[in-house]
């Protein structure tokens, strides 16, 4: 095996060139052409105008909110999971919903949050009255967090499981309070899991477009909806490609910041 040539390398490299290198190179190439096919830097100039910058900032803000809420909900859940008796069963239950088609879950939320849905029925019964829930920022962030939660819980859970419990006992024996132990021992030691989870949530949250369209209507514009709009509606591929290049750069930056942890692919 050692002296043999690596016969598997050629087909694999060919596949990677065809489906990873060339497509990304073509996106970069395309971003330098305007809608009529002339060479231009105009797409990037346009990207730096207030309209696009505002959209980018709001997209990053929403992605940030989604990541923070996911983490706030996921960390205690992951912590509680490690303390449970039937861990394997709970984990299975956690993963199971992610096998259900994403569109179905989002579609179910359309019914749950609708004017005559469950939530509004409950609100009316409580005497608060029917509210507009669908097509608001709240519903967008809620559904997004819902989708991403398992991808945040899993890496944090794994990090917590790897934590040596004697370190926690040692801290408690030395007189640290529960909060201090968490802040100085538990959290720093599970930081890798948190980073992996944030990476798995933040990048897809920047590029959501299906959830945005269905749940937020046209209220929220993310980088994902902008790319989809340019490629499939206005047919201005150059501009779409320029935004995509920005998204790729953002992705690389986040990966460098959080490390290339294999957080797993998130479907959306």
């Amino acid at each position, binding site marked *: 095996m050692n002296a043999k040539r690596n016969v598997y390398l050629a087909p694999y490299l060919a596949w990677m060139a065809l489906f990873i290198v060339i497509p990304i190179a073509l996106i970069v190439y395309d971003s330098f052409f305007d809608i009529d096919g002339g060479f231009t830097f105009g797409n990037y100039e346009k990207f730096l105008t207030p309209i696009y910058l505002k959209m980018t900032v709001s997209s990053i803000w929403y992605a940030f909110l989604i990541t923070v809420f996911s983490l706030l909900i996921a960390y205690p859940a992951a*912590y509680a*999971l490690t303390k449970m008796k039937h861990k394997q069963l709970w984990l299975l239950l956690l993963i199971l*919903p992610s096998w259900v088609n994403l569109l*179905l879950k989002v579609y179910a939320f359309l019914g749950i949050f609708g*004017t*005559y849905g469950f939530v509004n029925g409950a609100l009316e019964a409580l005497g608060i009255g029917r509210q507009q829930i669908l097509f608001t920022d709240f519903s967008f962030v809620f559904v997004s967090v819902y989708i991403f939660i398992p991808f945040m819980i899993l890496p944090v859970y794994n990090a917590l499981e790897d934590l040596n419990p004697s370190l926690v006992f040692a801290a408690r024996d030395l007189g640290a309070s529960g909060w201090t132990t968490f802040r100085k021992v538990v959290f720093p030691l599970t930081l890798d899991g948190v980073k992996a989870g944030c990476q798995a949530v933040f990048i897809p949250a920047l590029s959501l477009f299906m959830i945005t369209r269905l749940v937020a209507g046209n209220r929220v514009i993310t980088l994902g909806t902008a790319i989809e709009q340019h490629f499939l509606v206005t047919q201005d591929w150059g501009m779409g490609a320029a935004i995509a290049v920005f998204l790729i750069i953002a992705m690389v930056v986040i990966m460098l910041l959080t490390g290339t942890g294999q957080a797993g692919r998130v479907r959306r």
Partner: protein
Amino acid sequence: MKAAKRWQSAYLIVVFAVLYAPIAYMIFLLVQQRRHDARLRGLHA
């Protein structure tokens, strides 16, 4: 210690209840096609 454990379980149950809400809703739809139909007509009216 016991109280903490109870809180943890309660929290997990809430999280998992929300996690399964849309799926429960789908199953609910399975058996109540007609009623849902009428309600959604109202939604889009």
